[in-house]
């Protein structure tokens, strides 16, 4: 028996490209499916949320100003980084009680989903935008533009695939995101943040907060500088509260569909409409000349 004591990782938040602790200094225990503590994870508060929204707002214009091609490259790079650490991700996913083979499949599906959305970065405008027929000497063009800062309340499970499936379509169009990670299984989200930080993703484009979501979600929904909420991770009660709080700022809330979501099914769990959900259509009239 060697007397070596294992070096445990400190799981921190991901805000503005950095990995800070919560301003409160608090943590909470992340358990595995057997109820054993695997790590202590930062417990973010509404002040951390406020900071994350500020970072996301600051990062948004330049992220949206990049070419779609460049955003696609960066999201593809995230996929590369996840592939590189696939074994680490699989181990984290297994903590939730997922069998080894299934955990590996979830990781690979997450990577493929990132690549799939990366490909849409310079194509979704062509599908969602349009040259509209009008009765006059005008070009009438509709183009989608990113909504702005979007809050993502990630599904509790599957922690990795659920987060990737909801986050990728948000940022691909030029939105920036503030993510409330799975509270029950936070570890994969933190590891994903580490992959993002090494993937050329500019600081502030994705901000990931771990901790009690009931303390943060109402402030996220009522925050007037957040333009939309993806609430796939909210249960029915939470969703009603979010919609009410979001009403003051006329903020879009996208809730989960009825019934179980087949996250592994590419035909239903990934769609260009998920990108369209957080874009705004700008229509321009332009004279054709005589």
């Amino acid at each position: 028996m060697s007397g070596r004591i294992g070096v445990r990782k400190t799981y921190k938040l991901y805000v503005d490209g950095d990995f800070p602790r919560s301003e409160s200094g608090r943590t909470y225990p992340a358990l595995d499916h057997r109820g054993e503590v695997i790590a202590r994870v930062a417990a973010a508060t509404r002040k951390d949320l406020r900071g994350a929204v500020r970072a996301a707002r600051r990062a948004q214009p330049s992220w949206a100003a990049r070419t779609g091609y460049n955003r696609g490259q960066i999201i593809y790079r995230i996929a590369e980084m996840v592939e590189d650490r696939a074994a680490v991700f699989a181990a984290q996913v297994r903590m939730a009680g997922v069998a080894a083979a299934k955990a590996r499949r979830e990781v690979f599906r997450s990577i493929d989903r990132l690549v799939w959305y990366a490909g849409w970065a310079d194509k979704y405008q062509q599908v969602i935008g349009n040259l509209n027929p009008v009765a006059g000497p005008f070009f009438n063009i509709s183009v989608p533009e990113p909504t702005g800062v979007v809050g993502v309340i990630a599904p509790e499970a599957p922690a990795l695939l659920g987060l990737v499936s909801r986050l990728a379509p948000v940022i691909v169009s030029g939105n920036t995101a503030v993510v409330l990670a799975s509270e029950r299984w936070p570890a994969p989200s933190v590891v994903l943040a580490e992959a993002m930080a090494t993937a050329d993703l500019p600081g502030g484009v994705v901000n990931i907060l771990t901790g009690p979501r009931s303390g943060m979600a109402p402030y996220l929904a009522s925050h007037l500088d957040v333009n939309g909420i993806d609430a796939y991770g909210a249960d029915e009660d939470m969703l009603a509260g979010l919609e009410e709080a979001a009403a003051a700022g006329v903020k879009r809330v996208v809730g989960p569909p009825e019934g179980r979501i087949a996250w592994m099914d590419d035909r239903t769990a990934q769609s260009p409409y998920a990108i369209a959900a957080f874009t705004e259509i700008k229509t321009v009239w332009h004279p054709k000349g005589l």
Partner: protein
Amino acid sequence: MTFLGLPIGLAPMSAKAPATVLPTSPVLGPSVTPKVIESYLRAVPPVDEVGAAERAAALSTRSVKRESKLAALDLAVRMCDLTTLEGRDTPGKIVQLASKAARPDPTDPTIPPAAALCVYPNLVPHAVRALAGSGVGVASVATYFPSGQAPLEVKLAEAAWAASEGADEIDMVIDRGAFLAGDCLKVYEEIAAVGEACRPACLKVILETGELGGFDNVRRASMLAMAAGADFIKTSTGKVSPAATLPVTLVMLEAIRDFYAASGRAVGIKPAGGISTAKQAVRYLVMLSETLGAAWLTPSRFRFGASSLLNDLLMQIRWVREGRYQSPDYFTED
């Protein structure tokens, strides 16, 4: 007590130490000569830089919440000198800012007006017209702002013109070149002459602390400006970095305290430049209250020179009242 045959101990040292006896009002007596100024400034004690920085840092950890925070934010709005000092300022922009100063939040009548609108001399007539009857003052920078490098006649003419056009307050810059070259008499005379020329307007003297090279000089310049008749001393033009900081403001506050103790004249202070958040503003108010007391917590003795601070104050007030984080999208820019 002796050491190596020499007498040591506190008694003989303190007997030799310069007595900090400042002349009473009129501060420097009837005839001001270079010698009088020199001995006046020599009596100004040096500044403990590390101490000032630590004191400022310690005071800025104080937490101000709820009712106290609302009261502080309300006071800070009333202390704002809403400022625009750009080459591209137009009469239209002045009219816009004037309405912002008079009603900072058009949707909320409980928000008080700002203290003053601070503009270039050229735009004083427009500001005076736009603010007539609003209770908001018009402040004008003068004396060849921001450099102050012009002949005295030019400076006097500029300040007198702005005052005659209706400016209630004149923000003059000191001649930093003369001060750094040691010609303190020139600085003194200029301040006194500008004060004379723009009477009865309130005279604010900008020291431009970022160019004075050290806290000792800031303290000396403060004492000099107050002796010459400044109603306010102001940290910066906002055109030089570093502008207002907490430690440099603390040094000036202490100079005001010393001057008040010696002469009985209460001088105001205006930190300007670099104060853009409500949190910073509240820190200044805490320091002000701790150094000079509640008598200075009024717009007639304390101002913030700022352009973007006002909106952050409004956002913070609404956050405290409504409990939801605010967005700049809901507040007017000018």
